[in-house]
């Protein structure tokens, strides 16, 4: 138990561990002291001077981000002096700010807008011509609008302290200070630089990819989990018009803190693909027939009866719930092998300043989940090959969420029943008796298990196309019809069913997983919020 210090902030008594800063202590009771240069993941230079608070007995206003609490301290964050300081500093920020909010990507989520709107002067007094820096291409995905910069140096510190690749610096001094790259090198070849766009409190650093694509207030933020690798970084999918417009990290100190890598950040376009499977299709005697889900599943069950042993291909991109439902169906049909293929990179891409975070070698989000339900990995590191045993199988073949991109049209030609569940049409599914459209993880609820066996939930960010349904819903219904029991009606049901059938998932509830995730094989439940 750390030594506690009790102080008073805005009339509220608060106890925090010794060494806590005033800004963090205030945050713990829900008081957000405006700040720019402070970021919890980096050092505090105390230079924006926005978090100055009044501390009784101190001769000068104190920067909340570096002043540590003392017993009996009386702090005012909303007193006349504190407000006057903030109003003064905010006015200084606007002296040279271009106020080009109408064309600024940050507009709507900009700290300068918010702070000035809340506490700034109604009318500016600046009459002088503004300083002009113009724009600069920083390389990578980053564009720099120098005139909007508030010189908080978060980006410089991220690159030097967190990514630990000194690509940015402040050049010149005084009000000629400007962020710049070294020579023409820029940010090219760094793998975490997208984070500097996130931590820029204003619109000085913007993403080229997102530039002028959507207004912040038109975006819906949905908590999700990155599918780029086995790390399982917590992200928000920002959607508009049923399309993912961008990916932002979601704070989770246990997994990725505030950061995500550039692979994950830019790996979302596949979720927006248009050429999707939209209706269940039954093929017989060379003819394809789209049909209602009920009819399709009834026909499928009829054909499955006595069709022989099962060989299934799963996917490490599928959720725990999907994999659990597949496992139950395979067992109900008499059991059989489940295999999956996944891509692997040669090397990890670590974030040096945050050692538990890296772009992992395993480039799928749920290989751990697949392993836990008893699937075994086959094939090469580029997720090809390894399907010879399934390809010519003469019993039931079920393919879940593997696009069979390397397989020919003769795949599954000998199968007594070939069920292809996927998001896109594939040459490998030519002989499929049933082609069933399933939704992506962005289109439904579910969970992944990351490499440290942390189960993390994602939520539904967009509508599935046409009649596509979550795989757990389809597989769960088929398993219930075949083997008895209730069909899951929600992802929570499906997760509970998984817990009953796979012991590794036993003892954790959907609520335990919450928004922060829960480690498997831990009896203590992690509280979600």
């Amino acid at each position, binding site marked *: 138990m750390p030594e506690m210090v009790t102080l008073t902030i805005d009339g509220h008594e608060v106890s925090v561990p010794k060494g806590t800063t005033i800004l963090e202590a205030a945050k713990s009771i829900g008081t957000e002291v405006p700040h720019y240069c402070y970021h919890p993941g980096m050092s505090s230079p105390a230079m924006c*001077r926005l978090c*100055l608070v009044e501390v009784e007995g101190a001769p000068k206003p104190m920067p909340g981000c570096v002043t540590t609490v003392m017993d009996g301290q009386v702090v005012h964050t909303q007193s006349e002096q504190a407000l006057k300081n903030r109003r*003064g500093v905010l006015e*200084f920020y606007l002296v040279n700010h271009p106020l080009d909010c109408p064309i600024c990507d940050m507009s709507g989520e900009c700290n300068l807008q918010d702070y000035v709107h809340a506490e700034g002067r109604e009318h500016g007094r600046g009459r002088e011509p503004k300083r002009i820096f113009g724009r600069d291409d920083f390389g990578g995905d980053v564009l720099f609008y120098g005139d909007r910069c508030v*010189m908080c140096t978060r980006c410089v510190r991220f690159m030097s302290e967190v990514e630990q690749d000194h690509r940015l610096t402040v050049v*010149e001094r005084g009000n000629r200070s400007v962020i710049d790259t070294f020579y023409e090198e820029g940010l090219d070849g760094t793998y975490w630089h997208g984070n500097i766009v996130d931590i820029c409190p204003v619109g000085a650093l913007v993403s080229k990819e997102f530039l002028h694509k959507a207004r912040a207030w038109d975006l819906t933020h949905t908590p999700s989990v990155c599918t780029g690798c086995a790390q399982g970084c917590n992200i928000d999918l920002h959607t508009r018009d049923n399309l993912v417009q961008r990916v932002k990290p979601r704070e989770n100190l246990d997994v990725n803190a505030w950061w995500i890598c550039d692979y994950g950040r830019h790996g979302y376009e596949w979720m927006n693909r248009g050429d999707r499977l939209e209706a269940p299709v039954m093929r017989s005697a060379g003819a394809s027939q789209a049909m209602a889900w009920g009819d399709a599943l009834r026909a499928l069950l009829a054909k499955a009866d006595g069709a022989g042993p099962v060989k299934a291909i799963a996917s490490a991109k599928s959720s725990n719930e999907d994999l659990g439902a597949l496992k139950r169906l395979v067992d109900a049909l008499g059991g059989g092998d489940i295999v999956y293929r996944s891509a692997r990179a040669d090397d990890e891409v670590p974030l040096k300043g945050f050692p538990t975070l890296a772009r992992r070698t395993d480039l799928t989000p749920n290989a751990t989940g697949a392993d836990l339900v008893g699937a075994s990995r086959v094939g090469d590191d580029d997720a090809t090959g390894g399907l010879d045993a399934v390809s010519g199988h003469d019993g039931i073949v079920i393919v879940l969420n593997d696009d069979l991109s390397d397989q020919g049209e003769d795949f599954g030609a000998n199968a007594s029943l070939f069920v292809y569940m996927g998001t896109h049409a594939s040459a490998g599914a030519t002989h499929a008796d049933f082609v069933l459209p399933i939704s992506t993880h962005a289109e439904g609820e579910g969970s992944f298990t990351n490499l440290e066996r942390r189960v993390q939930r994602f939520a539904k960010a967009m509508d599935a196309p046409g009649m596509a349904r979550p795989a757990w819903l389809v597989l769960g219904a088929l398993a219930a019809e075949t083997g008895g029991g209730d069909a899951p009606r929600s992802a929570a049901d499906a997760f509970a069913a998984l817990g009953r059938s796979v012991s590794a998932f036993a003892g954790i509830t959907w609520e335990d997983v919450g928004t922060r995730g829960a480690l498997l094989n831990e009896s203590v439940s992690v509280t979600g919020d």
Partner: protein
Amino acid sequence: MAYPYVSDHEVRVLSRYFGDPAQRRVDTYVERGGYSALKKAFELGPEKVIDEVKASGLRGRGGAGFPTGVKWSFMPKDSSKPHYLLCNADESEPGTFKDRELIRWDPHQLIEGCLIGAYAIGAKHVYIYCRGEFFEANSILARAVEDAYEKGYIGNDIMGSGIDLDLTVHQGAGAYICGEETGLMNSLEGRRGQPRVKPPFPAAVGAFGMPSTINNVETLAAVTHIVEHGGEWYRQFGTEKSPGTKLFCVSGHVNKPGNYELPLGFPLMQLIEDVCGGMREGNALKAVIPGGSSVPIINAEEAGRCTLDYEGCVDVGTMLGCASVIVMDETADIVKQVRRMVDFYAHESCGQCTPCREGSAWTAQILKRIEDGRGTEEDLDTLMEMTQQMVGTTICVLSDSVAAPVQSSIEKFRDEYLALIRRGERVGAA
């Protein structure tokens, strides 16, 4: 070469050999009693040296006037970390030219003071951070250090005492803010010359992250004489609270500008009239900046009441600073002078803290507009209020230094601003 102007009122302790190039030679310095204070310090031991400096009442000559002995006693006693003594020779306050002269004419006096200081605080290494533009002073100092090493006054086993002390002269690269103590440390370490957030203070975490003390050139030069003659001896000069002598750098509209060493507490008007030979062409006195451009301006009436010690200056609403007396006569254009000072600060702001980075440049812009006859009366209110936001809100005091001349000049010379605003009429000729 004789020193240009001297006065009978002077008490030449530190400046005794100003104008005598022979003093630069180590042999002459030793013949005249040099390095005996260092020997005496070694005999006294660090504690007694600090006690002696405390007894002298010596206050830091860099501007803040903090008691030197007390500052030294802040250094941790039982720390296994290396300690450093830094000598701040980055003299860059507009109007100041005393440290340069101390280095040029009597470099060994400074070196001896540095060695005594280092010995007192338990440092093994002294860095003299010398302003980059002082080419002549730098070469003289470098030569003196070389000589002192050769003669065994610096290095291992100094004068057979078994004590090792090293001294490095570091040449700055020309930024005003590197004269701020923590900015100096950053610069010395090879970082951007930006002041550091305090706490931690230099005595705990200073140069290279180690306990450090930083003193002004004049302070350390005075230490040599205090150790030589004793703290009580030093107190015969000056006042009770501001003991000792001080070099006054007088510039501006007087007949004999220059460096004058006077006891603290000397009346300002007597400095101007008797020591400096009165105002140029018999003009009337208009304003004085008694402590370098960072301190508030005083008018003729206040100057008449001002005595040149730390307390006497505070009494008339200004500060002694580093005693750089800038004298302006009736022909001076106050608005222009203030604008030029603010231009300087805007140029020299390191750019860390928002109030200073944006405020100093904005202040300069508004002043320029007023000077050009395009100002409004509201501008004066804006200036007063906005500069107030620059006082006490930043890491170092550079932004306070912008506020001081602006606020004091608007308070005391508002008519001059109004004349420009209302009629576009220039006061004065300069």
